[in-house]
């Protein structure tokens, strides 16, 4: 096969010059990944505006860029880029400036370790991942929550009471839900005997959503919390504290923060698919055998995304004390139960 010869040549060269290979592949990977996640997130924003419109019996954007409103995001981006740059009086300037940058760095860190699907060549799946780490599952889950630090920086530095409350809420929520989320990842790793996302996917002959349904539910809820979406968007509750931690942000700084949330949403749903929904596993599709894992993978991700948007359109938000209540009193014990279950079942099958 043509493809396999290329792969062989490249791997031979890689064996000769391992350092240069690593550098080159890292740079190329970073470029590709930043393109992929940004375009992906733009698609997510578009999807959300249209699908939310559908849920609410509206059209959503349909004037700019054909009747599908495809260029709406471009118009928004141009406008945000050309807005005045302002830092409020009394703000903690460096922290204020760095908050959106840290948010973007976070998403890049996460994206580096996540496999974006796979290609099926000669019956073998080659995952598309830049940094194939041994502990990538745990790493990704931990790195996702660095976003909360950006939230806290943004809220704390703005010199605004709403932002401050938003930041505190963000931290309280993160602490309450990071633990059960981590325990769920451990449970998955127990079953898969690995913390590597690729290996976790490969070991899922039965989706872990069915093998440990409790863990799946807890992880989904914790994920929605981590992404800060309704019903867990207390840190930017629009009707209570104006716009939460982004109250004082405008223009492109706000644009960055806003966009990172959508990138995170994309990455989060990919993580959910990888951990619980069998990743790119699925039967081969005849004509496009090479792409068939990609098709399955994207389909699953799309379904998760639509689910997240649907939730946003149909639920009201929790109060912050109820959120932490739920996190500590229900999610954590239940996730431990799930861990025990995973250990038992894992031992039984292994």
């Amino acid at each position, binding site marked *: 096969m043509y493809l396999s010869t290329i792969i062989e040549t490249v791997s031979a060269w890689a064996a000769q010059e391992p350092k240069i290979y690593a550098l080159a592949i890292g740079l190329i990977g970073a470029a590709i990944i930043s393109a992929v996640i940004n375009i992906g997130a733009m698609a997510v924003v578009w999807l959300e505006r249209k699908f939310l419109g559908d849920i609410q*019996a509206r059209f959503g954007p349909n004037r700019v860029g054909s009747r599908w409103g495809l260029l709406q995001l471009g118009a928004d981006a141009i406008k945000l880029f050309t807005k005045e740059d302002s830092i409020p009086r009394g703000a903690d300037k460096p922290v204020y400036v760095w908050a959106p940058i840290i948010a973007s760095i976070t998403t890049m860190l996460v994206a580096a370790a996540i496999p974006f699907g796979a290609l099926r060549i000669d019956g073998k799946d080659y995952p598309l991942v830049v940094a194939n780490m041994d502990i990538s599952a745990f790493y990704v889950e931990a790195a996702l929550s660095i976003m909360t630090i950006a939230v806290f920086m943004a809220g704390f530095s703005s010199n605004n009471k709403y932002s401050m409350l938003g930041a505190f809420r963000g931290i309280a929520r993160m602490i309450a839900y990071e633990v059960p989320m981590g325990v769920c990842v451990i449970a998955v790793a127990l079953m898969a005997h690995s913390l590597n996302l690729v290996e976790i996917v490969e070991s899922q002959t039965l989706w872990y959503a069915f093998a440990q349904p409790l863990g799946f539910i807890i992880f989904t809820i914790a994920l929605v919390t981590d992404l800060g979406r309704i019903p867990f968007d207390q840190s930017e509750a629009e009707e209570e504290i104006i716009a939460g931690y982004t109250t004082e942000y405008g223009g492109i700084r706000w644009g960055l923060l806003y966009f990172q949330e959508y990138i995170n949403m994309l990455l989060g749903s990919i993580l959910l698919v990888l951990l619980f929904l069998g990743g790119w596993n699925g039967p081969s599709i005849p004509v496009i055998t090479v792409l068939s894992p990609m098709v399955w993978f994207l389909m699953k991700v799309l379904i998760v995304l639509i689910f997240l948007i649907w939730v946003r359109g149909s639920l009201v938000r929790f109060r912050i004390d109820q959120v932490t209540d739920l996190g500590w009193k229900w999610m954590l014990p239940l996730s431990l139960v799930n861990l025990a279950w995973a250990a038992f079942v894992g031992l039984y099958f292994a």
Partner: protein
Amino acid sequence: MSAIQSAFPGAVLESRVESDRRLWITVDPKRLVEITQFLRDKKDFDHYSGAAGVDRINENLFEVVEILTSHGAHQVVVLMKVKVPRDKPSVRSLTGLYWNANWYEREIWEMFGINFEGHPELYPLLLPDELVGYWPWRKDFKGYPDTTTGERAIEQVGPDGYTEFKIMPHTELIKAGVLPERPKYPTFREREEAEIKSDSEMIMHMGPQHAIVPGPFLLDLLIEGERVKKAFLDVGYIHKGIEKIMENRTYLQGIVYTDRMCYLASITNNEAYCGAVERLLGITPPERAQYIRVILAELSRIQSHLLGTGEFLTLLGAATYSPFQYMIIDREDIVYLMESITGARITHTFVRFGGVRNDLPDGFADKARPILKRMRERTEEYMDLLHSDPIYTRRMRGIGVLSPGDARRLGVSGPPLRASDTPYDMRREDPILVYPDLDFKVVTRKAGDAEARVEVRLEEILESIHIIEQCLDQIPDGPIQEKLPKKIKPEPGEAYYRVEDPRGEMGIYVVSDGSEKPYRVKVRGPVYAYMQALPPLLEGAYVADVVAIAGSMDACTSEVDR
């Protein structure tokens, strides 16, 4: 009446029994508090409904009219007048007897300059600080010297490059004697900052522009973490002085202003004003007109409740919460129906003295019935939805509880009062139009929390649909307008008329001096009472519940400020 006379010989200077529901008495200012206490304790007048000031400039007197009534024990409304000389006006305060007398007396103080002895916090309520001291509702008020606009408003560039907008105080003009001296009192900001006791507390301003508010008002919360320790409310950001403007318009022109008082209930506001003037004129509208008025009032109630509930839901979820959007869709149907009758979407100016402006359009009943039927199904669906949503019930149950006793004491009316197990509805208490002929039930709930208030509203939509359907069946043919002279000049006198607004008890008190223009119009709005009751309700709540409680009251700022 005779009971008062026998209990306080010599205290009652004048009295008039208008009907079995209205009693006008003029009492000695010195014995006002005693008589009120007697009425409250012995005669069940437990509802302080409002107070109005009247400037009788020809007699060199101020009148303060206290409106007292009862929560269901009987249906008598006592309008108790006190006359005080104009040069040093002072009346004993009733705040010791009725908690909710507070705002009404503050308003009379800032507008007329009538001092209330024993009032705990005689600060301006609606007026901006710079207008206090001019007493704008007095008859000899010549208009405010317009020094706000133009050169007094300046934009200052500070040393750090930020532009600040300021309206300079007119201290120099006061020194020069052009403007009168202003009374001394601590400003709103100073009052609330005096309450900060420790470092962990801070004041969070919600407003005047804030996503929770249906119109601008300032809700300041003294919070510690997420807990509200004390709430301060400042209204008057859209105070337009409607009552004063109406004194300078003819009776007919006045209807336009009642629309803009509460734009969600303009029909009922029209109704209250026209009803009061009809009492002055001594006419009753023909039966068909009465039915049309009832139909419109109930339609207006439906759309107001839908918008109120919808807006409340956006406070819980974001504006992306879909049921809110569905409610607006349903509301548009109702608005179309109203538009087909009146020609306007929200400000109708439809009710006339002794009738209505025009008849129902042809085929209205056929058009209305399917819409009402669909509305009923949809409303039941909403009730189901909200009832079965676990997050919603967790958020709303037991939040902002008003016990029946508290609700009565705070003087709220309408859905919040009925949610606190008090069947107090003007359509029953003070029946007008054809309401006595119609079959409807007064919706009540036991709980008194935010959830119950929303439930009451949704169920009232069902009742309103029921009323409209009866009206469509029963409506007779006939004229829709009484014959009236072109220039409306009622005999000198006064009338008080109450209707059930979508938000509660709406009363309008009109004084006529025999000319083309009303001498004084006083509006007793329901939201005024809600807003007054809001700060005590919010104490001890979470910040997130503040929006829930404020939203469940369904406030309409425009009516508070007038």
